[in-house]
């Protein structure tokens, strides 16, 4: 693997960003779009060749004689040296997961670039859009190839910023502005945890480097053993805090609230950032640090709990949402939670750490089919000009390509064989059952819910009842080829991705792992999924009153779920009522009136004192003389008392 290729993978998108960002206004839309897409295309080719070289060249750089894959640092350039050991390097770490991520990111990114040529056609700020996409791709690529935790943090922040810019792309729309702000601040809050985690970890390990941290965690982490803080070991704290960063980016409860709002951004952006790549950064982070997490099972248990609760929560909420992008957003949250659970239940002692492999596998397949779903949703929105499924229905006739590809996506996510989601989800369930039946059952139930809400969505869009499209001015139709082509490609990938021998390529200890279907688990999950789909079919295939009845029968739960269990309100309360009104405002008031007031008070006091003693200068000589004499005598007497008597 030569350095130039790897440098180019990062540099090309960055150059595209600078080029489009600085000179974009001078270019035509077409020029900018094509330039951006071409740049991404070249990056795609380079990334693919890199990944293929890594996985299949058999070079001793990448795989040892025993068949274990190796971590290969292609280059590692010192960027900022804090101390001799704590050094931020910008490097390129090639190992199974980063190679896999390279493929995922470049694929989806390229698809989105292509798709956007059609979707964003004629939008103002088209060049800016492509510039930001390039920036995002650069940041995300930098994140996954990070050789050290600080590099990851750097790019972590950069993806956050590009996500902010892209969510707020329609900056004249107040909702988009506030959504972008929310996304940035919530993830920033999580990043605070990440940062503190890094600080704690690096303080004890004295290194940022992933390879040295993960290849020999026992030694590196030796000094953390004894140190305790507030009841937990330091390592637990550090790992949980680092995981907090992951929770923010990956929208785990309770830091998930930004993701549904992030759907304010252009739909291809949602596909790229908020479905396929950036949101899985948290999973990637835990996976990257997995050997360290294995040192501290408590932290992994927390990961599991957070993941499981989020998965269930998001699935329930997804069942009630009306906005198709929000349904997909909650579904994303839920699916990422699956990956988290998979990591959380994985142990090196159990089944060769199948959870880790499953998680990565699911990450891969999910990226494909969720991008597909989002792009499909984009095509729908493009056609109907609404995010709301109530203004859709019966679209299967008008948009056949979209319909088929969307259906494939739904089947994949529902875990129906032979689509991709089945295989990866199956592995997750296996891992969960291996860890504890509780998680197995729990996750199977969530998988059932997944199938249900996806098909609810599917039926509401493509079946149900057809609204009067003529009345709205135009009849929906399939999108141009730039948009449908990515759909078709992704659909094809979703169909076949499950058959990739993923375990051979990726596993926690980089030894080859042979996937074999665990028939009981697979059968259970498929049966649950099919039942759920059937239920959805009953309820939503034709317009009927059944959904309302169901909703009414569990009215409390339904309303709560519809309002996303009031998390947003809670946050609003905390930010506005507590942070703003009870902290910031009082502090600002305190500053203006107490601190500043006390400074002003000195001035006022001086003036007051000046006014108070003005009587001394009465203009009357006799009082002058009296004061003169009294002053002299007073000083004299005091001196006498002090010097002579004391």
């Amino acid at each position, binding site marked *: 693997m030569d350095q130039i290729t790897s440098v180019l993978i990062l540099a090309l998108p960055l150059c595209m960003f600078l080029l489009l960002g600085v000179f974009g206004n001078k270019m035509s839309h077409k020029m900018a779009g094509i330039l951006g897409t071409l740049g991404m295309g070249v990056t795609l080719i380079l990334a693919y060749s890199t990944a293929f070289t890594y996985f299949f060249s058999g070079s001793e750089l990448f795989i040892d004689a025993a068949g274990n894959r190796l971590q290969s640092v292609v280059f590692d350039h010192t960027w900022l040296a*804090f101390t001799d050991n704590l050094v931020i390097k910008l490097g390129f770490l090639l190992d199974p997961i980063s190679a896999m991520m390279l493929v995922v990111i470049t694929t989806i990114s390229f698809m989105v670039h292509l798709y956007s040529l059609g979707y964003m056609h004629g939008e103002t700020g088209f060049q800016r859009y492509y510039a930001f996409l390039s920036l995002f791709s650069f940041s995300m690529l930098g994140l996954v190839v990070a050789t050290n935790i600080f590099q990851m943090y*750097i790019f972590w*922040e*950069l993806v956050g910023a590009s996500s902010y810019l892209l969510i707020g792309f329609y900056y*004249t729309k107040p909702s988009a502005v506030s959504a*972008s702000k929310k996304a940035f*601040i919530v993830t920033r809050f999580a990043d605070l945890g990440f940062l503190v985690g890094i600080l704690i970890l*690096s303080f004890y390990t004295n290194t940022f480097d992933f390879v040295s941290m993960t290849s020999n965690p026992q030694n590196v982490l030796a000094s953390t053993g004894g140190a305790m803080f507030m009841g937990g070991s330091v390592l637990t704290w550090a790992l949980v805090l680092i995981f907090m960063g992951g929770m923010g980016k990956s929208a785990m409860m309770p830091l998930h609230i930004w993701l549904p709002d992030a759907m304010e951004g252009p739909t291809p952006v949602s596909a790229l950032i908020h479905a396929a790549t950036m949101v899985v950064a948290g999973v990637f982070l835990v996976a990257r640090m997995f050997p360290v997490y294995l040192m501290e099972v408590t932290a992994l248990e927390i990961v599991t709990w957070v993941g499981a609760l989020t998965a269930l929560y998001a699935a329930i909420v997804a069942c009630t949402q009306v906005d198709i992008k929000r349904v997909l957003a909650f579904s994303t949250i839920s699916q990422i939670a699956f990956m988290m659970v998979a990591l959380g239940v994985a142990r090196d002692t159990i089944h060769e750490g199948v959870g880790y492999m499953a998680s990565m596998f699911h990450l891969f397949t999910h990226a494909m089919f969720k991008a597909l779903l989002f792009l499909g949703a984009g095509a729908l929105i493009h056609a109907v000009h609404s995010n709301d499924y109530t203004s859709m229905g019966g679209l299967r006739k008008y948009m056949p390509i979209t319909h088929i590809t969307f259906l494939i996506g739904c089947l994949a996510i529902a875990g129906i064989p032979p689509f991709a989601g089945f295989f990866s989800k199956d592995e997750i369930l296996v891992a969960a059952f291996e860890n504890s039946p509780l998680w197995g059952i729990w996750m199977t139930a969530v998988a059932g819910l997944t199938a249900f809400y996806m098909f609810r969505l599917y039926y509401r869009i493509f079946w149900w009842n057809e609204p009067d499209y003529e009345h709205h001015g135009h009849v929906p139709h399939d999108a141009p080829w730039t948009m449908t082509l990515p759909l078709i490609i992704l659909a094809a990938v979703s169909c076949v991705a499950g058959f990739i021998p993923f375990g051979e390529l990726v596993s926690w200890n980089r030894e080859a792992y042979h996937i074999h279907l665990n028939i009981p688990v697979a059968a259970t999950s498929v049966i649950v999924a099919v039942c759920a789909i059937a239920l959805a079919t009953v309820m939503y295939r034709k317009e009927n009153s059944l959904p309302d009845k169901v909703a009414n029968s569990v009215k409390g739960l339904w309303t709560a779920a519809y309002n996303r269990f009031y998390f947003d309100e809670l946050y609003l309360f905390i930010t506005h009522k507590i942070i703003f009104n009870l902290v910031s405002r009082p*502090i600002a008031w305190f500053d203006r009136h107490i601190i500043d007031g006390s400074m002003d008070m000195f001035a006022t006091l001086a003036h007051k004192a000046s006014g108070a003693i003005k009587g001394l200068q009465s203009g009357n000589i006799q009082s002058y003389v009296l004061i003169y004499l009294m002053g002299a005598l007073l000083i004299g007497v005091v001196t006498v008392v002090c010097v002579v008597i004391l």
Partner: protein
Amino acid sequence: MFENILIYFVVIPVLMLGGLALCKNIKQIRAVAVVGSLALVGLSIALLLGYLEQRAAGATAEMLYVDSWTWFAPLNINLAVGVDGISVAMLILSAIILLTGSFASWKIDPLPKEFFLWLILLSIGVFGFFITIDLFTMFMFYEVALIPMYLLIGVWGSGNKNYSAMKLTLMLMGGSAFLMLGLIGIHYHSAPEGQPLTWNLLEIAQNNAIDRNWQYFLFPMTFVGFGVLGAMFPFHTWSPDGHASAPTAVSMLHAGVLMKLGGYGCFRVAIYLMPEAANELAWIFLILTGISVVYGAFSACVQTDLKYINAYSSVSHCGLVLFAILMLNTTAMTGAIMQMLSHGLMTALFFALIGMIYGRTHTRDIRMMGGLMKIMPFLAVCYVIAGMASLGLPGLSGFVAEMTIFVGSFQHTDMFHRVFTIVACCSIVITAVYILRVVGKLLLGPVQDKHHLELTDATWWERLSTITLIVSVAAIGCFPNFFAELIKFTFSENIFKVLGMN
């Protein structure tokens, strides 16, 4: 005397003053200002190169270009100059900000001549402060830098300018009252019994003769004295009012450079000369600066005046400088200096932009504006970049500075310090809140005021000013190690030897 390059940092501004006196019209005034500040930028870059060359050639002295000319012989006061990497960095910063400040005051009105006169006098103080290593001379330049502020704000300011100008001047003078006492005290304990007293920083450090009890007295004096200018809680309140009222270039220079004098002085005098007291009393000031950091950020969250927001954010960021200095280790101190550079540049950028926006909309109330991105995209984009630098986006200067500070501070072995570091870290979230709040209200969203639609985007001199600053911010952000290496002081050994740590 004139073969030492450093002396030209004072000579050029003095020549500029002379040139200004001869000017007849605004064009000539601009020419003098721009040529002079360009010469200073050039000079500072030449100094940087020369400095690096000497270091590369193996110069190991704490300070280079050291020279000393007798001034007041009976008191052993000298005009002693010398620079290390920190001063070099500060000189570059000052020169850049003076240049951009000159561009930002292209259309200053009324009395342009007087304006530049005071501005240049101020810069004499700043440059002089950074090149000297003699306590007396240093203090003199320090005060020279303070007083022009009064007239600059009072005459060319806006809003409640009389009050603000007076408050700023008096509070800073209050600080320098403590400072003067501290410096004189240091002088009288600068040498062991029987040896001649000195004002020279290097000699005092070498003698290391300040008795510990005296350190307990003198350290707070000097630290608070400089700390007032560094906007340390609770002596920061001059900053919001002062900045809000000051004209653009003055805000830039004041927040960008002058506040750095505080941090630099705390480091160069208080800590460098009295490390034992610094080590033992640090906790008091850590609490104060820690409060500054968080408190400034929270206060900024609810302000509605752009300049107030930025002023409070300066309180927060400058608090971080002092915070890091008090950690007494190389990394944190390097971070502090980088933060000074970074904050200097980005806050200058902020103030420049605010001035430009204010010059167009004639309001600084964010509730009155909105959607400026559509109207003046160039300025708006620059504002976003400045905001991103402020909230610590990697690739811009804020990130590297803050991270160096946090990592450095967290290396402290004491639990208290580390917990406080975490508290300080919280500021990155709050910073994001207020920056994005401003960006959201001011630049994004629908246009608030229909009249604003007729406004124009930046002129060439404004573009030049902002682009210079953005390039500098990005340069630090992208190549931090160059600056870190420049700053990492050789003389740190001196402090740490005393402290017996690191």
